């Protein structure tokens, strides 16, 4: 037998995701957004999702399409409103979507804490602000910190450049962003990869996400910045 994480269909890529799942979705704006996987998740039908992503989608594609179809109950993000975040704004103002706003670095740091098996971390970010309300505060060596809990996904959807059958991944330029940490922080990680290569064709020095963190890979040839 051989390890083969490559699946042939978009359906297989997102099979088995249940209602209420927490889904980590990579990308910063359009760069690194796993648009095709978002549409596969839309077709798959899971509802009542909690989505963790830096932004809340643009236009009516990808994450925005999932939200537009009413599949997302809550979004955990740092910067929901940006050029073209029309679906988010409609739903938010109509009170049809919960928003948990997290400082951007703490968003990835909380996912990293989950990936690394930590119980919690003391963060210097947001101390004394509205975003730290209700969070435990503590002084350590003369500086104040707030307690932040790990943020773990049932599913992570990431957009990669190269991939092989072991699930090793590289990323394209700034499309790397949340891919590595989300791949580490979910029970099931699915990558849409622009190019599938043979095992050993990715230089072991340049693998960014080792295959141990990846469960399924599906080939999605073009991404062009998420469009």
């Amino acid at each position, binding site marked *: 037998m051989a390890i083969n994480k490559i699946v042939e269909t978009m359906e297989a890529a997102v099979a088995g995701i249940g209602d209420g799942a927490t889904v980590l979705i990579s990308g*910063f*704006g*359009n*760069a*690194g957004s796993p648009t095709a996987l978002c549409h596969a998740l839309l077709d798959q039908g899971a509802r009542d999702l909690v989505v963790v992503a*830096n932004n809340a989608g643009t236009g009516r594609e990808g994450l925005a399409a999932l939200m537009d179809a009413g599949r997302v109950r809550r979004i955990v993000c*740092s*910067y*929901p*409103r*940006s*050029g073209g975040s029309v679906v*988010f*704004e409609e739903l*938010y*103002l109509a009170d049809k979507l919960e*928003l948990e*706003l*997290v*400082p*951007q*670095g*703490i968003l*990835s*740091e909380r996912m*990293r804490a989950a990936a690394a098996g930590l119980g919690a971390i003391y*963060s*210097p*970010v*947001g*101390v*004394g*602000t*509205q*975003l730290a309300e209700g969070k435990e505060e503590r002084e350590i060596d003369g500086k104040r910190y707030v307690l932040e809990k790990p943020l773990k996904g049932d599913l992570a959807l990431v957009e990669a450049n190269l991939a092989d059958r072991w699930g090793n991944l590289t*990323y*394209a*330029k*700034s*499309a*790397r*962003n*949340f*891919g*590595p*940490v989300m791949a580490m922080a979910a029970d099931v990680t699915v990558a849409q990869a622009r190019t599938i290569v043979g095992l050993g064709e990715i230089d072991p020095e340049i693998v*960014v996400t080792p295959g141990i963190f990846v469960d399924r890979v599906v080939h999605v040839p073009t991404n*062009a*910045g*998420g*469009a």
Partner: protein
Amino acid sequence: MAVQTLDDITRLTRRQVAWRTAHDIEDGWYVNLGIGMPTMCSNYLPEDREIVLQSENGVLGVGPNPPEGEEDPDLVNASKQLITLLKGGSYVSHVDSFTMIRGGHLDLALLGAFEVSEAGDLANWTTNDPKFPPGVGGAMDLAVGAKRIWVLTEHCTRQGEPKLVKACTYPLTAAGVVKRVYTDLAVLELGDDGVVVLEMVPGLTLETLQAVTGPELRLADDWRELVAPEVG
């Protein structure tokens, strides 16, 4: 003689504020540029200095805008603008990017503001207006993580109210972090001595500036005229 009003004064353009700020960034510094005026500073960095711009989405060594036809949708800054990468630049994961930021590895972060208090408190992420869903982005991480925080802002709101205030009325981004403020009227330093005016645009008097500024101002002994060239 009539009392001076701001109508008598030529303010800096947004580009000129960016130009002025850029000239205080020192050779060899690692710098993060926030959305808006801060990002415009990248166009005006003195050519005799090597300054490394960091973009929190995971780019170290941000270069100028790409020539037309050479844009790459995979290469964007935190404002989601298309950029290039300098020789010596690198791509990093989001976690590593914020390790740079929160761990005190940046020499400077330039941010925008709704309000800055005389104690250096910064409010730049929400006005609590229910019609505008809030967004914080990396502002809180940058505000507590970088070695220096400088703010670029118009001196007054559209309604003519001071943005440099005694105490912030909007929700804070971070307390006591802003060290310098660059506006379309002045350059001001915030410190133990209170708010010190380092530079003012030509013709402006301290009294007129004081009238549109919350905290009490003190003119630096070596204050200078704030003169910026026409910049495109």
